[in-house]
């Protein structure tokens, strides 16, 4: 892992289009500003990992599971 020391107001540039700026440091909390093209998704790592895990759980590769889940939802009475 590349390790850089930066102060408040300093930035790092990742590739040609992504800039990360240290906006504020208070105790053990750091506020970062991120400038990136709209095509680059920026997320908190724990949120991204959680979504990846949820997607992996949601993925169905077994026909009987898919059919069973569809059947359950078809029979289930939605709210209201």
């Amino acid at each position: 892992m590349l390790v850089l020391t930066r102060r408040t107001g300093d930035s790092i540039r990742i590739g040609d289009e992504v800039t990360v700026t240290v906006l504020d440091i208070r105790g053990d909390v750091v506020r970062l500003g991120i400038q990136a093209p709209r095509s680059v998704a920026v997320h908190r790592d724990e949120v991204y990992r959680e979504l990846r895990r949820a997607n992996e759980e949601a993925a169905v590769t077994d026909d009987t599971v898919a059919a069973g889940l569809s059947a359950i939802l078809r029979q289930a009475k939605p709210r209201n």
Partner: protein
Amino acid sequence: MTRIDPASTEDLPTIEFSTPMPGFPEHRTFVLVGSGEDEPVFTLCSVDEPALRFIVVPPAPFFPDYAPEIGDQVLEQLATAKADDLLVLLVVTGGDTPAQATANLLAPVVVNRATRRAVQVILSEDLPIRAPLLP
């Protein structure tokens, strides 16, 4: 459930993710298959790997109050200026019983109806990633 033969899916809506769903970087193109019985259940089937599919539902029948705020960045990514052009689908995770099925309210799949481009959006609102689908 029928296996999807990519050659036979030309008349089905094909959805192209502009950014792949997290966890599935190799799968961008999916076919949206209805349950065929006018019921609010759809299946997103990967064109590259037909065995891979996600069960998705429109939010309204299950979560009538769900009104996600779609940011400008997403609108731009999907090349539209109007939220009305968008179709919102929730990814469902099955359980052993109907009571265990959950829907992902935090990260809906948002589709531009006109271009069929899609992205799984992580909303900035505080919403559950596993909300019980049934009351």
